[in-house]
C-alpha cells in the first residue's frame, strides 16, 4: 500500500452531486478527510456524459468532456482524480485509459481542448472512492476510526454494476475486488460495526438509465433486489452508486403498486453509514435526512449519536 501523503487527490463530484445524490457528495466530503486523505474539488468541472452522452454527442465529444475535467485536474497538480459516482468513474476512468493508450485519440482530444486553451498530458489516475478506501486506507483503518459502531444494523450491501464492472478486477482499476461477488461493501459495513447480511443480488442490475427512460422494462429487476434484501432481513440497503440509490429507492412505491408488494427499505450510501459510524453529524455530514424511503431503523440512525 503506497503512502497517501505522496498523492494529491482531486475530487470530481459529478452532476448528481448537485441533485439526486447530494447525500453521497455530502458524506464523501465528510469521511474522506476523516480517513486521512486530502482532496480538493476540480475547478469548474463539467458533466462526464453519463451513459447516454455517446448517443447524444458522439464518442469523441464524450471523451473530450472527460478530457476537459482531467485537464483541469492536471492544472491543479493532481496525481489522482477521485470520484464517488459510478457513471462518472466509468466515463472519466474509461476515457482516461483510452486517452493514455490511444495516441490518435489523445491528439484529437487535445485538438478539441485547444479551442479552450487547454490540454491533457494524460498522467493522471482516475480512481473510484471505494477503490481508494480499500487500497489506500484499508478496513483496519476504518475500524480504528469508528467511534459509534452501528450495532445491530442489518445491511444488504448492494454494489450494483458500474462500481465494479468493467474495471474493479483490472490492473488500471486497482484490482480491488471481483466482478460478480465483491466483498468490499460488506466489509465496509462490518468495519462500521453493522452486520452484513447474506445477499446474492450484490451485483445484479437495477436497470441503470433504462430504468429512468423506460421504467416498465426494469421494475422487475429492482423488485428482485428489494425482495432479496427483505428475505435476507436487511434493515437498510447500502450502495455506492447514485443511480442505484435513486432507482432502488424511488421506484419502491411504483413496484408496490405494480406487484402488490409492501417494500419499505431505506437505500443509503455506504458513505452515509461511515459518516454516522465515525460519529459525524447525521444531517450535515451523513445527509441521512435526504433519504426518501425511511423506517425506524433509519430514524434511530438519524437520532442517536
Amino acid at each position, binding site marked *: 500500500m503506497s503512502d497517501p501523503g505522496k498523492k494529491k487527490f482531486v475530487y470530481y463530484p459529478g452532476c448528481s452531486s448537485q441533485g439526486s445524490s447530494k447525500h453521497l457528495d455530502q458524506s464523501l466530503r465528510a469521511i474522506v478527510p476523516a480517513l486521512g486523505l486530502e482532496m480538493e474539488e476540480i475547478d469548474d468541472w463539467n*458533466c462526464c456524459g453519463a451513459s447516454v452522452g455517446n448517443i447524444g454527442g458522439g464518442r469523441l465529444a464524450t471523451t473530450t468532456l472527460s478530457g476537459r475535467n482531467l485537464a483541469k485536474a492536471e492544472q491543479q497538480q493532481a496525481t489522482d482524480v477521485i470520484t464517488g459516482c459510478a457513471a462518472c468513474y466509468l466515463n472519466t476512468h474509461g476515457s482516461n485509459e483510452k486517452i493514455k493508450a490511444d495516441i490518435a485519440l489523445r491528439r484529437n482530444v487535445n485538438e478539441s481542448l485547444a479551442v479552450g486553451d487547454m490540454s491533457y498530458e494524460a498522467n493522471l489516475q482516475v480512481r473510484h472512492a471505494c477503490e481508494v478506501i480499500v487500497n489506500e486506507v484499508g478496513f483496519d483503518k476504518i475500524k480504528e476510526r469508528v467511534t459509534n459502531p452501528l450495532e445491530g444494523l442489518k445491511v444488504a450491501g448492494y454494489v450494483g454494476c458500474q462500481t465494479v464492472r468493467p474495471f474493479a478486477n483490472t490492473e488500471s482499476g486497482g484490482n480491488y475486488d471481483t466482478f460478480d461477488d465483491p466483498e468490499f461493501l460488506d466489509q465496509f459495513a462490518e468495519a462500521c460495526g453493522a452486520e452484513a447480511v447474506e445477499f446474492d443480488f450484490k451485483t445484479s442490475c437495477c436497470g441503470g438509465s*433504462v430504468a429512468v427512460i423506460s421504467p416498465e422494462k426494469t421494475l422487475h429487476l429492482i423488485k428482485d433486489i428489494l425482495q432479496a434484501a427483505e428475505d435476507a432481513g436487511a434493515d437498510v440497503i447500502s450502495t455506492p452508486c447514485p443511480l442505484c440509490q435513486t432507482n432502488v429507492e424511488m421506484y419502491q412505491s411504483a413496484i408496490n403498486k405494480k406487484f402488490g408488494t409492501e417494500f419499505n427499505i431505506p437505500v443509503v450510501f455506504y458513505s452515509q453509514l461511515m459518516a454516522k459510524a465515525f460519529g459525524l453529524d447525521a444531517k450535515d455530514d451523513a445527509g441521512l435526512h435526504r433519504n426518501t424511503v425511511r423506517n425506524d431503523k433509519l430514524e434511530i440512525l438519524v437520532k442517536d449519536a
Partner: protein
Amino acid sequence: MTASLPENSHKYDLGFARWVYKNINGADKLSMCMQCGTCSGSCPIGSDMDNGPRKLFMMIRAGMKEEVFNSDTLWNCTSCYRCTVRCPRGIPVTYIVQGLAAKATHLGYATEQDAARFAKSFWWSLTHFGRTDERLVTAKYYFSFGLVKGIKKSLENLKIAFGMVMKGRMHLGPPHKVSANKDLRAILAKAQEIEAREQQGGAES
C-alpha cells in the same frame, strides 16, 4: 455528421462488417466473437431484446445493416457490463452496443426511440449548461413526446419528483452552469467536427 455506409450486394458481404469494425469504438474486436452466447445470456433484460448482442454480432457479419440499426437491442442496454467482463474473447460488448446505438441515432434510424429522445434532451442540457440538470433533462425528455404525453408522463412521476424536492434532492431555480460554458460548447463542437471528418475519411478508405 453521417459517415457514408457501404451498400451490401449479398448476404455476408463484408463491407458493412468492416465498416463497423472501423467506425464503432471497440468493434475492431468484434471479429473475435465465437457466438458462445455468454453476452446475451448474462444480460439483465436480455429477454426483452429482439436479438441480443450475440445474434446482433452475427447479423453484422452477415451484412444485415437495416436489421442491425433497427434492432431494439441497441436501446435496451442498461450498461451493467456483465457481457463485457464475461466475454471469453475479450470483446467490449457494452461499448459496441452503445456505439451502434449512437451510430443509429446519427444515421437517422430510431428517432422514435425513448433512449434517443432522452439522449437528445441530455445533450441539450449538457451543451447549454455544461452540466446535467436532472429536472430539466427529464422535463425536456417527457415533452419530447408532445405536450399531452409529456404532461401525462410528468404527472406519473410527480410523486417521485415531489419526494426529491422535499428532500432537497431536486435542484430548483436556475440550473448549475459551467462558468466557461462558451468554451466548453466550442470544444464539443470541435470534437464533433473532428469525428465527422475522420469518419468521412474512414468510410472512403
